[in-house]
C-alpha cells in the first residue's frame, strides 16, 4: 500500500499519547508514540530504518478501518510479529546488524501481504500488519505464511548463522477478539508471546514423523503446563473406543462450525478412512470453506463430499501405524497422535498444531488454499 500525500502528515501532530497499547508494553509504546508525536515533521509516514509504515499512521488507519468494519459488520485481522533476541544481539553485533535483520523480516512479511494489507513498525523490534476483510482463520493462515516465507528466506537464513533470533507471531481479529484497537493489539501480542512457551519451539525444524516420535516418546518434551489458562498438551493411553469418541466429536465440531473455515487432517491407522463420514454429512456441499483430508488405506469408499479429499497411502506408510487428528479452525486448534499400541499425545497448543499441520503437508505434498 502506498503512503498518502505528504500534506496529510500534519494530522499526527495532535495524536494523543494515550492511544498506545495497554499491557506490559504500555510504557515502551507510549514513549514510542511520543517520539513520533514530538517530531512529526521530521519524518515521513514510513519508518526510515525498515520502510514499514510508522506507528501514528498505523494507529489512525487501523482505527478508521475498525470503525468501517464495525459499521458494515466485516472482519479485520491484526497480526503482530516480534523479532526476539534483538536487545541481547545489539550489544554484540551493533545496530547495523539489527537493522539488517529488521529489514529482512519486514521484507518477508511484505512478500506475504496483499496490496490492501498495511505493514507498520509498532515497536523497536515489532511489526504489526492490519488485514482488512480477514477473519480469524485468514489471519492464522497469514501468520503461517509469514513463518514459512521467513524460514525459506536466504537473507534471514544467512543472518540466523550470526544472529540467533526468533520470530514470534500472534494474531487477533475484530470482532471475535474485541472491537477496540488496543484490545486487539494486546490480544495479538499475548498470542505471540504464548508461542514462546509452545512445545513447537523445541521441535525446531524436525519433519513430521520425527516430531510425532518426539512428542510421543521424548522425555525432555514431557508436557507440563502449570498455568491452567494456557493451551495444554498431554500424553495418555487411549483405547480404540476413546479414540473413536474423540474423532466423532471432532467431526461433529467441524459440522457445527460449518459456517466458518478450517482445516482437518484425519487418518484411521490401519482402518479404512471413511468411518466418521456420517458426521461430516451435516456439512453443506457448497456452502462451506473447510478443507478436509482423510489419509489412509483404500477401502470401499463412500467419499462423495466435495470438501473431503481422500489421500491413499501405501500399507507400509507410517500412517498405517498411527491415528492422526489435526484440526485448525477459526475457533479451535487440536491435534491428537496415537500409536497402534495405544500411546497417545494430544494438544490444544496452537503453534504446535500449526507445526504438525505444516510438516504433514510437506511430508505428503498436500497443498491447501
Amino acid at each position, binding site marked *: 500500500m502506498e503512503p498518502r500525500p505528504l500534506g496529510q502528515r500534519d494530522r499526527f501532530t495532535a495524536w494523543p499519547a494515550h492511544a498506545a497499547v495497554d499491557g506490559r508494553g504500555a510504557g515502551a509504546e507510549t514513549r514510542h508514540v511520543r517520539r513520533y508525536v514530538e517530531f512529526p515533521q521530521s519524518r515521513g509516514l514510513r519508518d526510515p530504518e525498515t520502510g514499514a509504515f510508522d506507528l501514528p499512521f498505523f494507529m489512525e488507519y487501523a482505527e478508521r478501518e475498525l470503525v468501517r468494519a464495525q459499521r458494515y459488520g466485516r472482519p479485520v485481522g491484526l497480526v503482530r510479529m516480534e523479532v526476539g533476541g534483538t536487545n541481547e544481539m545489539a550489544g554484540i553485533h551493533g545496530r547495523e546488524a539489527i537493522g539488517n535483520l529488521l529489514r529482512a523480516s519486514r521484507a518477508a512479511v511484505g512478500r506475504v501481504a496483499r496490496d490492501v494489507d498495511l505493514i507498520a513498525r509498532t515497536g523497536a523490534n515489532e511489526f504489526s500488519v492490519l488485514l482488512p476483510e480477514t477473519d480469524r482463520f485468514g489471519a492464522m493462515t497469514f501468520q503461517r505464511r509469514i513463518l514459512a516465507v521467513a524460514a525459506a528466506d536466504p537473507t534471514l537464513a544467512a543472518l540466523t548463522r550470526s544472529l540467533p533470533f526468533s520470530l514470534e507471531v500472534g494474531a487477533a481479529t475484530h470482532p471475535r477478539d474485541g472491537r477496540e484497537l488496543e484490545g486487539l493489539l494486546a490480544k495479538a501480542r499475548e498470542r505471540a508471546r504464548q508461542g514462546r512457551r509452545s512445545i513447537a519451539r523445541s521441535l525446531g525444524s524436525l519433519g513430521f514423523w520425527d516430531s510425532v516420535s518426539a512428542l510421543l516418546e521424548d522425555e525432555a518434551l514431557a508436557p507440563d503446563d502449570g498455568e491452567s489458562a494456557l493451551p495444554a498438551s498431554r500424553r495418555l493411553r487411549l483405547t480404540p473406543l476413546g479414540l473413536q469418541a474423540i474423532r466423532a466429536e471432532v467431526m461433529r465440531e467441524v459440522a457445527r462450525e460449518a459456517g466458518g473455515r478450517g482445516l482437518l487432517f484425519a487418518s484411521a491407522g490401519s482402518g479404512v478412512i471413511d468411518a466418521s463420514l456420517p458426521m461430516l454429512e451435516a456439512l453443506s456441499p457448497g456452502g462451506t470453506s473447510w478443507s478436509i483430508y482423510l489419509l489412509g488405506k483404500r477401502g470401499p469408499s463412500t467419499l462423495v463430499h466435495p470438501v473431503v*479429499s481422500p489421500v491413499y497411502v501405501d500399507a507400509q506408510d507410517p500412517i498405517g501405524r498411527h491415528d492422526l487428528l489435526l484440526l485448525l479452525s477459526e475457533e479451535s486448534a487440536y491435534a491428537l497422535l496415537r500409536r497402534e499400541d495405544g500411546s497417545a499425545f494430544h494438544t490444544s497448543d496452537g503453534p504446535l498444531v500449526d507445526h504438525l499441520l505444516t510438516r504433514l503437508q510437506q511430508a505428503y505434498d498436500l497443498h491447501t488454499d
Partner: protein
Amino acid sequence: MTSTPIRSVGKTILIADPDHVSVRWLGPRLRDRGFQVHAASDGSQALQTTLLRHPDLILFDRSCSLIEAEAFLRILRSNPRTEAIPVVITGEKEVGPPAAAQASLRKPYVEDELYAKIEQVIRRSRPSLPLQESELRGQLTQLPMPDLLQVLSMNRRTGRLLIRSGGLVGEIDVVEGQVHDARWAGVVGEKALFRILAQKKGSFELVVSTGEVPNRLGRSLDRLLLDGSYQADELSRLMERLPAPMARVELLTEPPEPAGLSAPVAQVVDFLRTGPGTVAGIIERVVAPDLDAAQALEEVLQQGWARVAGSVTFPVDRPLLDPSDLHLLRQRLLRARRSAVGPAVGKILLAPGSAAEIHDLAPRLASLPGHRRADATREIGTFAHLELGEEVVLDLISFPSDDSFRPLWPLLAAGALGALILDEGPAGAGLEAWLERVAQLPVVRAAADPVDQLRSLLVSPMERSPGQV
C-alpha cells in the same frame, strides 16, 4: 503442421501429470488455443483442483501417485458434482481407457490427435453440475415427504434428494421417479427411507445426479410409501408398549433354538450377548427397519430371554423451554451462528465424574420432548440431542473432567451455552474454575433435578455470546 480448430474459449482443462516436462510442453499449447489450464502433480491434488475448479476436461496420467486412475474415476463418478466431467487417461503404454473414462491417449502426444480427441470428448460431454445447483428446494412443512416423492414420481425425475432435519442430512436416490436407495445418520436402505419419511420438519433439495444408482429397495414408490406410513403408525403404537427408549435391557437366558430365530431377533440376541443395551440403542443397531427391530425386541422380552435392567423411567416431561424463552435462545444462537445452514445448534456441557453419572442422568433427559440419543459413547462427546422446536437443537456433550483430557477442553467448550458440573471431586472443581475463568461460560452444579439446572442455563439472563476460548 495443422491443428484442428477447437471451440475452446472459456473451457478449462486440468492436466494431472507428475511429469513436469510433459506439462510444460502441453500447457502453453492448450493455452494458445484458448483453454484455461490447471495442473496437478498427483491424484490428490487433481481431485482437489477438480472440486475447486470444476474443469471441462481432465487429462489424467496413469503415473499419478496418491490416487490411481481407477480410484480417481470412481471418486469422480460417485459425486454428483463431478460425475459428468469427462476424463481422458494418458500414459506411456497403450492401454484402453477404464470404463468410467471417455478416452485414452498415448504419450508422447501427436498434436493433431491430441486436439482432435479433446474436441471430440468435450463436444460429447454434457455440462456437468456446478456447485450448489439444485432443481428443486423447499420446506417439508409445505410439502411433506410422501407428497414430494409422488411429485417426483409423476414427473419421472432423476436426482438425489437431500433432506436436512434436526441437524442431520439424509439422501434419497431417485431414478425416473422411483426410489432406489436412501441414507440417514449412518443407516441405509429401507430403514433410512422410513426414518426420512417420518420427518415432518426440515428442508429438502433435489440435486442433479446422473450416475448409476443400484436399486437397493427394488419396490415401487407406492408400495414404499404405504409401508412407510404403516411402519410409522405401528412403531408409535409399539413404542408405547416397550420400555422407555433409554431403559436398559439385559439378556437373561439363551433362546432354546437360536437357529430358528428370525434375522432381527437373532441380531437383538447377539447384541445383548455383548452386554446390556438401551431400547433405542438396540433398535438402532438392528439392520432391519425400526418396526421390525422393535418387534424383535418385544419378542425377546415377551419370551423371557431378556429383561429390563433396574432402570428408572420418567413420564414424558413438559418442554424444556417456554415459547418466549425458546425464542430468546434462538435469537441468541442465530447471533453467534457458527453454521450457515440447518438448525441453530447450541451446546451444553455435562461434566460427570464417571460415565455412570451420565448413564444415571440419561433416563431423566430422555423424558424431555424432542430427546434423541446420539450414536456415541457417553464418556466423551455428544451423547444426546434435544430438538426444542423452532429449528433449535441442543447438543448434550459429555465433558471429561480428567486432567489427561485437558487439551480437548477448548474444543468442546467453543461456542457452548453453559456447563453442568456433575463431578463433585477435585477434578470437577478444577474444571469448574477453568470453565468460568478461561472459557467464560455460565456454570451450574447439579442439584436435585438436573433438568431444572439445564433450564436455568438456557434462560440465563446474561446477554453475551456463547463462550469463546
